[in-house]
């Protein structure tokens, strides 16, 4: 009994992410619908900004989902549909920002900081090894050498 219940719960949990996509929006052609879903997941809802239009229940998100589907039905390719939306709302609607001049800092910044840190660490460690190897200490004088020898011999 327990097992059946658990199985039922698990089965239910796969349905849990309540869909914002309404039944009347779904395209009859499953291949087109799959493409529409994939595109919608890449597009930011401008009303609730951290959701994709696929997740959002905002009226504008619904309008944009319908628009994406209309463009697909009209025969647009996936990139064409994306272009159609970015032409109107700018790169801001893309949840994955494109790599270009204005987003250079965003994409390259973390690696630049990492490199800077690595260079800093390298220089710091090299400096310390220099100290340990006695690079900047004077060699022992004859007098010091004699005293050291005396001390070492005492132990034997």
């Amino acid at each position, binding site marked *: 009994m327990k097992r059946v219940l658990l199985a039922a719960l698990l089965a239910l949990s796969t349905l849990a992410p309540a869909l914002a996509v309404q039944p009347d929006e779904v395209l009859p052609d499953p291949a087109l619908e799959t493409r529409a879903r994939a595109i919608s997941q890449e597009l930011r809802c*401008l*009303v609730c*900004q951290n959701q994709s239009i696929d997740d959002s229940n905002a009226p*504008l998100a619904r*309008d*944009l989902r319908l628009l994406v589907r209309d463009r697909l039905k009209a025969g647009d390719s996936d990139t064409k549909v994306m272009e159609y939306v970015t032409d*109107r*709302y*700018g790169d*801001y609607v893309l949840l994955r920002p494109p790599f270009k001049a204005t987003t250079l800092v965003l994409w390259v910044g973390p690696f630049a900081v990492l490199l800077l840190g690595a260079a800093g660490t390298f220089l710091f460690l090299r400096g310390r090894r220099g100290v340990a190897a006695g690079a900047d200490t004077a060699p022992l004088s004859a007098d010091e050498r004699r005293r050291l020898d005396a001390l070492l011999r005492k132990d034997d």
Partner: protein
Amino acid sequence: MRRLLYLLPFLLFLGVGVAFYLGFERDPRDIPSALIDKPAPTFDLPAIPGQPVQGQLGAGGLSSAKLTGDVTLVNVFASWCIPCKAEHPVITRLSREQGVTVYGINYKDKPEDALTWLSRNGNPYAAIGADQDGRVSIDWGVYGVPESYLIDRKGRIRFKHVGPLTPQVVEEQILPMVKHLRQG
């Protein structure tokens, strides 16, 4: 020299801190328009159904053809939108006293609601297009009403304001821009 090097991380931290602090001042809802300096989208919207034609401002619908010739302001509004009511006196003043032609796009509104709203609050629009399914507004990049667009004489979008127009925005941004665009 060496002491300055020890100060470096602190200075870096200070720089990042200042950048983040300034970030707080920015409104994340204010998304830069992709359409600035581009021609206004081509569209042809019908008038609000049921709007009396004779002797009434705002009759005849709105199309992109009307947006050339003079500097105009296109205002996207709806009767269900509370900030639209707040900016209405500002728009009325702009149209009746400050000499700017204002066109309206009525966004996803019930015709009877829109007409009631206009007769109650006054109609400052030289023409209104009814965008009932919101498609034309998507072409304009509208993501929240009210929004206002300043169009130059050649029909290009030159300025966009998201949210209600305030007297301050009109005085400091809209009117100087209108003056500049009329000369150019």
